[in-house]
């Protein structure tokens, strides 16, 4: 990567470039990728006056240290990290300006698993692949050479001017390492009986250490299947809860494959997926069954919440 941008001193645990995903190519087997918590991604972009499609950095559990080689406006939303500029703390959920040569450092993480660092001036400028800058790690596509950031990378960004500071409260993060997620029954319900549903909706499932952006392996009682045969492989979406023969469910997340042949007991509703994205391995998920009507109402409520925060961010600029 040549030219100026954000020079990565320490990459953090898993820092990737993500936009809203590589839609429109799943027929060629190209996975969508995109943010694990789209709410915080969109809000961070809004705070730096980007379009929602702009690419930002998704930061996982341990944050990076980077040097701005050009003056830029930044904002961090999502997981609550200590963030500093040249050792001076800056809060999350706020736009701030960084001068050339200043060091942005992520420190201790308090709540949430993933933060989004949005960059003014249109976001991260890595070359789009099939119309998207989203990094898909398994197919090594998008972002910086299809991989997580490494020390020494220079992530290309445009210069952006200093603007009045705007702030937003941000997503209400899961507390105490657990979240309740609402589930719509799957398209393959006849594979599962009442006993499987009872198990799914009465127990806390622990997110296994063998979880990643593709999916969360869930540790708990196995979900019994009424039919042992595998269904014919069919297209799937983020939020699907698939159940392999051994009964350990897998919640499919941003880097999911385009299709799969395990039966799905249900789908986590879109409104709650941002909460799932804020959970880390070792934390817990509880599931509640819901109806389509409730799913739509929850999504509208979530969207209203985001819009309200975006509007009040603008109002805070007008006041300052």
């Amino acid at each position, binding site marked *: 990567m040549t030219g100026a941008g954000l020079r990565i001193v320490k990459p953090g645990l898993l820092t990737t470039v993500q936009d809203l995903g590589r839609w429109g190519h799943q*027929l*060629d*087997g190209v996975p969508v990728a995109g943010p694990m918590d789209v709410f915080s991604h969109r809000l961070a972009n809004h705070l730096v006056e980007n379009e929602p499609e702009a690419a930002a950095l998704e930061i996982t559990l341990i944050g990076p240290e980077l040097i701005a080689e050009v003056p830029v406006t930044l904002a961090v939303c999502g997981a609550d990290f200590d963030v500093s500029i040249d050792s001076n703390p800056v809060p999350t959920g706020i736009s701030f300006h960084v001068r050339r040569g200043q060091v942005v450092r992520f420190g201790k993480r308090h709540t949430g698993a993933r933060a989004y660092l949005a960059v003014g001036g249109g976001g991260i400028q890595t070359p789009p692949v099939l119309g998207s800058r989203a990094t898909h790690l398994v*197919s090594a596509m998008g972002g910086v050479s299809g991989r997580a950031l490494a020390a020494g990378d220079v992530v290309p960004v445009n210069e952006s001017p200093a603007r009045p500071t705007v702030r937003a409260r941000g997503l209400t993060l899961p507390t105490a390492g657990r979240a309740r997620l609402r589930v*719509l029954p799957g398209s393959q319900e006849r594979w599962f009986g009442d006993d499987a549903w009872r198990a799914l909706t009465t127990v806390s499932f622990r997110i296994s250490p063998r979880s990643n952006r593709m999916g969360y392996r869930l540790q708990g009682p196995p979900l019994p299947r009424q039919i042992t045969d595998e269904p*014919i492989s069919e*297209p*799937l979406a983020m939020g*699907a809860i698939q159940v392999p023969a051994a009964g350990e469910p897998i919640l499919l997340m941003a880097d999911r494959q385009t*299709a799969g042949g395990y039966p799905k007991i249900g789908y986590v509703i879109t409104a709650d997926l941002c909460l799932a994205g804020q959970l880390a391995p070792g934390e817990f998920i509880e599931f509640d069954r819901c109806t389509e009507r409730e799913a739509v109402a929850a999504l509208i409520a979530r969207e209203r919440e985001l819009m309200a925060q975006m509007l009040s961010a603008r109002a805070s600029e007008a006041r300052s």
Partner: protein
Amino acid sequence: MNVRLAGDTLLLVEFEPAIDPLVNERVVELGHALRARQLPGVRDVVPGYATLGVHFDPLRTDLLALERAVGVEGRTLETITTLPEARVIEIPVQYGGQDGPDLEEVARFAGCSPHEVIDLHAGTAYRVYMLGFVPGFAYLGRVPAAIAAPRRRVPRDRVPAGSVGIAGQQTGIYPIDSPGGWQLIGRTDRTMFDPSRDPASLLSAGDTVRFVPV
């Protein structure tokens, strides 16, 4: 035709729960028809073996209009009884040796010589049913029953790009280096997937593939 929601962002249209060229042709053609309609909110149209997936943005999609379009297009496709002439793509393959480390194994499974395995594999025209697993990976069927060897018990950590494998009655070509459990019988030097190319994928659902020994 069975239309159902999978979660709140995916509509699945299933013609018949079967791996069958005619069923798959309906899936593929319904995909073309819906893509051509450019319905607002629809962000991806994805053929599977027997199911078409229509991914939509629930805040920007008129679900009733989408279901109506699916109904109208789907019903006309249910009357298809013959397959149209497909695009034929030839894939040159170096069978056996280092390129196909499991050729002997498949021959043992089939109780024939490696040459006969090659004749059977290359003597069959395959339909591309769908793509998945990794970008550009096409699921091809059907492999003649005699050589339909099951997956390896222990998958390989790394299968080189271009490897041609068998898994039961499916065959396919690994487009990129990836882990994989299919029985590898040969390798091609064709680039199956290149995101800088248009179209990026050499194969599309509905194509016919012929393997040519080199």
